[in-house]
């Protein structure tokens, strides 16, 4: 279904959108474009942003269409770091984020968990954020319990939960895991968890996967784990505002990075291409689906900036003429 067919079927939506912005058009006609734009009530901008996000979500929800993605070098590096591992290799997944950043980071967490599960790696989940355990539980529920029921808790994956101390936690577990982690998130002693055998520090991990929304997160993993112990490998999925801060660490301290929803969408494509099958579950397409609202919202912001600058230069020129 293309856009025209969609609008033909969903004509009522067009009517609602036009009616909602009709008073603005009426103002343009009565007061003139320049005056309205100069004194534009910000609630009109909020309304435009609302439609810019909602319409693509609805369109993608109805049609299932997504934009094609070309994976970047960084996404490919992230994917390859997991691909090079062998079945049974231990991998640490640190989910250092909360629901506020879930829009960007949950698709990454889902894709990482799925990729690692497909590779049959041993998953050690932990969190440096107090709400991290809930993020871990959600990923386990969404991916492992529903699509990989053959994986056994304690043998194939374990949730070690949250520990307070931020970078202090990393500094300890990088040399001595059991000084801090005596039980898993559910209170089971680590000695009774089969996959914890031989894991005395995180240098045993073949890869650290960090999903980070800020402090403590990727920067601390780089500074306190990978920098003093260069044999450790680290890949990260981070929010858009953080991504530029981590480029200086690439590629020697940070071996792969997914930046914002775009990075998540590229990584999702790589995972789906390799493991997805012909008709992947929509939960594995979340980032790809969110690229639609991102496109329209970005275009709206560019449009608003252009209009504001045209207005600014017009006023400036008039001032100079006078």
């Amino acid at each position, binding site marked *: 279904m293309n856009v025209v067919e969609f609008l033909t079927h969903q004509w009522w939506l067009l009517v609602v959108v036009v009616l909602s912005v009709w008073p603005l058009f009426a103002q343009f006609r009565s007061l003139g474009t320049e005056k309205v734009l100069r004194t534009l009530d*910000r609630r009109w901008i909020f309304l435009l942003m609302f439609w810019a996000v909602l319409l693509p979500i609805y369109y993608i929800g109805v049609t299932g269409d997504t934009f094609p993605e070309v994976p970047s070098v960084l996404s490919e590096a992230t994917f390859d770091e997991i691909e090079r591992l062998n079945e049974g290799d231990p991998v640490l997944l640190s989910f250092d984020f909360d629901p506020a950043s879930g829009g960007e980071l949950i698709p990454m967490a889902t894709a990482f968990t799925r990729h690692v599960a497909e590779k049959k790696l041993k998953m050690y989940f932990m969190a440096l954020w107090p709400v991290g355990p809930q993020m871990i539980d959600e990923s386990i529920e969404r991916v492992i319990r529903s699509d990989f029921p053959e994986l056994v808790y304690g043998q194939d994956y374990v949730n070690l939960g949250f520990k307070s101390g931020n970078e202090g936690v990393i500094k300890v577990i990088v040399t001595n895991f059991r000084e801090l982690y005596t039980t898993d998130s559910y209170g089971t002693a680590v000695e009774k968890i089969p996959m914890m055998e031989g894991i005395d520090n995180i240098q045993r991990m073949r890869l650290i996967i960090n999903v980070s929304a800020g402090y403590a997160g990727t920067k601390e993993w780089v500074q306190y784990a990978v920098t003093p112990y260069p044999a450790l490998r680290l890949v990260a999925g981070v929010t858009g505002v953080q*991504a530029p801060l981590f480029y200086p660490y690439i590629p020697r301290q940070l071996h792969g990075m997914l930046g914002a929803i775009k990075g998540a969408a590229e990584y999702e494509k790589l995972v789906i291409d390799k493991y997805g099958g012909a008709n992947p579950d929509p939960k594995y397409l979340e980032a790809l689906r969110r690229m639609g609202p991102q496109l329209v919202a970005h275009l709206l912001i560019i449009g608003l900036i252009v209009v504001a600058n045209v207005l600014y230069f017009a006023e400036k020129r008039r001032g100079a003429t006078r």
Partner: protein
Amino acid sequence: MKRLVPMLITAAGGFLLIVAYFIPYWQSWGEKATIWFDVLASIAFILGGGNLLKVHLKHVSDRSRGWGYSLVVLVSFLVTLAVGLGKVGVPPSPQFPAFAWSGPYGQPGGAFWFLYEYAFKPLTSTIFAMLAFYIASAAFRAFRAKNLHAFLLLGTAFIILLGRTFAGVLLTSWIDPSIWSGFQYFTGLRIEVLTVYIMSVFTTAGNRAIMIGIALGIVATSLRVLLGLDRSYLGKE
């Protein structure tokens, strides 16, 4: 004495961690110091909770402006604390079926899970989502190409905004060597390529300079703190 003891603890802890980093023999001492830090960080939660109670109880008792919000904070805090500490409504664990509250507190169906799922999660997500609206409004009101620097910033912002979506690919897809062989010299001008170039060259260079500057500042400040020259962290006399 009130200032001397904290200064000595700071100096001892700091120098111990520095020595432990460079001398492997001292590594276990460094671990011990870091565990103390983790214990203190856990105790900080209690201090934080105490401070929150103190500030908001005062707001409520003074009936100062917006005291109703403080009341909401206090009720939310105390209810979540009681439910979390008391493990209210937590179902039995499959491992210990005889013990009523032995299951994980975050398990679906538990009261703590309910608070997280239906209060914390939607509230934090909503607040973060509102950023999109304010960014759009701020961009319209504040982003003007008033001088060359602002113009360059604006141009870069447009390239990145477009390059992070499919629009970037679409707009410059005509710069394709298969259409005209001469385009092979201009593929670097495709928006998605420019985006990567800006992020990996200009952004990296700028950030690296800032990071090195910050690191030097941290070293200088840390040394002043460890040597007792800077005592501002101890508060006033």
